[in-house]
């Protein structure tokens, strides 16, 4: 624990704190949020900050603080789905390519190159055009687009490990490849997988917010940060910037926190390798 704190540094700990607050807020939204995030009264619209409405209300008179809390849920689950799928399949593809090498490696690498050639958002929009807009579709499509990123990073590191004696010698003992991969190779590239997932989380959050902003992700009246930036546009023009700005800030701060923690974890993984 102490070691973790040392690696993270002050800023890193602050970032961890921010992530903790966001996650807890999302988890306990039903308990913390003072109002229903989807119901508002037009007579209450465009209220400023007060004890009654901590961050004021939006154009439909809904409490912005409550909407931010509830919005954290979809804003976090989306990237979580993306990161989980990406890590699992990316690692699977990478380790398969590394263990069998040769033609298998070439083939998988070319498939990944092909996926790389598609812009992420374009791939997501294509999927949404076919399956209809929803958070699940957007997250699944983005997962497919992200797999090459995670697969490529894991592959390059596993490739290095593959030729080290502690991986080579079980092979000479006659231990099956799948056992060596699972028991020796995977645990030694795991720190990299965690780091990659943390950093990807931030990227996925931004892109999912962008999709929601475009109306292709989470659908109104549900609360979602990307959606709030979008629905706040009209208020912004009317001189009430609170909704868009606060939702935007939430995204930026959370993404920055994940990015920083990921970077620190990456440094940790690198330092751990040296030792």
């Amino acid at each position, binding site marked *: 624990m102490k070691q973790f704190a040392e690696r993270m540094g002050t800023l890193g700990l602050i970032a961890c704190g921010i992530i903790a607050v966001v996650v807890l807020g999302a988890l306990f939204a039903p308990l913390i949020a003072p109002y229903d995030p989807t119901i508002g009264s037009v007579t209450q619209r465009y209220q400023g900050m007060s004890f009654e409405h901590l961050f004021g209300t939006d154009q439909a008179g809904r409490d912005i603080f409550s909407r931010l809390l509830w919005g954290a849920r979809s804003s976090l689950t989306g990237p979580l789905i993306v990161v989980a799928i990406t890590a699992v399949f990316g690692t699977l593809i990478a380790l398969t390519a590394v263990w069998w090498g040769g033609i298998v490696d070439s083939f998988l690498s070319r498939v990944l190159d092909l996926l790389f050639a598609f812009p992420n958002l374009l791939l997501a929009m294509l999927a949404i055009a076919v399956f209809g807009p929803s958070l699940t579709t957007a997250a699944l499509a983005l997962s497919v687009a992200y797999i090459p990123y995670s697969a490529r990073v894991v592959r390059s590191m596993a490739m290095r490990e593959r030729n080290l004696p*502690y991986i080579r*010698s*079980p092979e*000479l*003992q*006659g*231990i099956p490849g799948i056992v060596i991969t699972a*028991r020796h190779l995977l645990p030694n590239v795991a720190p990299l997988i965690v780091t990659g997932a943390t950093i990807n989380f931030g990227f996925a959050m931004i892109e999912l917010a962008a999709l929601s902003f475009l109306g292709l992700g989470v659908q109104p009246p549900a609360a979602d940060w990307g959606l709030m930036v979008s629905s706040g546009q009209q208020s912004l023009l009317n001189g009430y910037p609170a909704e868009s700005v606060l939702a935007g800030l939430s995204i930026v701060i959370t993404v920055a926190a994940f990015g920083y923690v990921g970077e620190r974890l990456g440094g940790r993984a690198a330092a751990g390798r040296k030792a």
Partner: protein
Amino acid sequence: MLTIDNLSLTIGPDLQILREVSLAVAAGEAVGLVGESGSGKSMTLRSILHIEPEGSRVTGTITFDGVDVRGLTGEALRQMRANDVSMIAQNPHAVLNPVLPVERYLIEGMHDAQGQPTKTAKLRAGELLEQVGIDAVDRVLRSYPHQLSGGMLQRVVIAGAIAGKPRLMLADEPTTALDVTTQAEVMAILDECRHELGMAMLFVTHDLDLAAAVCDRIAVMKEGEIVEIGLPEQLRDNPQHPYTRALMESRPAGLTWTPEGGPTS
């Protein structure tokens, strides 16, 4: 049992590592492969197990019990490595996964490679360590590689190598990374295990005296070729090739090896 015939190995366009190496090892026989660094002795060993460097071209044949091992792939190759031919490398610390205890290393070899049930493997792990002269069996089984000395760890590797009762042991300078007194002990244990199991051995070393002490025949290699092959006494008393003579003359004076006692002066 093992026959190497006209083995040549080339890396890149014209870097020839091995030139028409021919060598036979009979069942139960120990053959030493002696030469300076870069003479191709390790590469000969590696060719037998298919671990020559990537991009090298190998010609000639290697047969083990009449089977062409260079033609083996996949499961057949794995079976050979698991059950017939074991290898001991120079540095035991590089061989074991640093994050798993020694017991796991031994069990893995017996269970996952040779297909013995985990329970039997667990019991045998202790027996094997006793066989290689380790007293504190339980402590060593629980230890991680970094907690053990090189000599201790090399014994563990030997224990793992003999677990499947292989018929051929490939030893690639198994004592070079150890200090002199440990060298003697490890060598004696290796020799003892070999006689107990009736294993054949191909023993790579640059130490002519050491090879003479534990081997039935010795082949001297130079620049990828076997320049002389014969009984240890022959090489010692009447070396034919000028290179063998040079090797004999360059060893420290007054030091002779016996397999039981190590170096005595």
